């Protein structure tokens, strides 16, 4: 059954793409937009996670609990026979969410650049996973 055509999937997938594209724009001038890039990295990954869960036939988690989001993704991947290669990147992004959103301490550009890399790697894994299941989404 195809899940990627559903309204829910489209909403999360488009949101994820927009956030990831905005992150890349911020990366072009990282010293000026570092905090924005970090937030966009985390939130693009969260939206990609919601999209891929729907794509894999699961529901997106309703709670704000990050552990629940990761375990829902792991369960869906295991059930559907999808590799877990991208999940560690998602975990790293979620573990940084509190620091970069609400933390009092300065987050340096080097760490933010790493978060953007994790976001790109998670995105690549997610796109590959969806393509392997559903074919090319844009043609």
């Amino acid at each position, binding site marked *: 059954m195809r899940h990627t055509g559903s309204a829910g999937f489209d909403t999360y997938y488009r949101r994820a*793409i927009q956030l990831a594209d905005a992150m*890349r724009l911020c990366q072009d001038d990282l010293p000026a937009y570092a905090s924005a890039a970090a937030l966009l990295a985390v939130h693009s990954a969260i939206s990609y996670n919601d999209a891929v869960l729907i794509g894999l036939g699961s529901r997106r988690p309703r709670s704000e609990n990050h552990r629940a989001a990761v375990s829902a993704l792991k369960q869906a991947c295991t059930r559907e026979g999808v590799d877990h290669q991208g999940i560690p990147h998602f975990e790293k992004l979620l573990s940084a969410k509190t620091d970069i959103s609400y933390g009092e301490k300065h987050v340096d550009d080097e760490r933010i650049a790493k978060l953007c890399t994790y976001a790109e*790697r998670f*995105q*690549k*894994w997610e*796109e*590959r996973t969806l393509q392997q299941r559903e074919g*090319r989404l*844009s043609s």
Partner: protein
Amino acid sequence: MTVKDDTGKLTTRQREGRAINAVAELLRRKLSVPNIYLEPPASLISADVLAVDRGGAGDLHAVEIKLERDLNPFEGQRRKPSSTKELNELHRVWYAKYSEKLNVIHRQVMSMPVHFRYLAISAESFDLAFGELGHLGLFPADGIGRLGVITIKEQGEESPTAEMAVVPERFRVDPAKLKAIETKLLAKSRPDIEVRI
């Protein structure tokens, strides 16, 4: 030999090779985690750079780079003409050849079986080329899609840079030709540039 001397003696092939890197970098920044293939097999697509958006799952973008000296009016003039008449004649002959060559290139890039098609030319020759391309048309007969134009700025010993001069629009693609690229290239070959998972 100094670096400056060295870059001054580059062949067209070498200049286009350097431009390939500049174009790949432009596409890497513009697209979303693209898979980029440098000089893909000509039997599948006649292009210098092929980029597939969204980690290989999205639209295909192909760029043909043309930096031949005879496409640039500021290069290749061997001697000063002795009269205005001779100058006009030289210009007429040169322009006819130029126009013919650009026509061939235009046909080639407009027929690339990808969603986004680009021609990359030297920044110096942009004004003239854009005028000529305007006659040939940036749009296909059905109006679906617009040819993108990228300018390459060569800066001696500095790395060349690529800029989007004309933003492309999405073309309609023959599914059979697209399938051939997908099955014979994308599914089999590892990209030259990609985001590692």
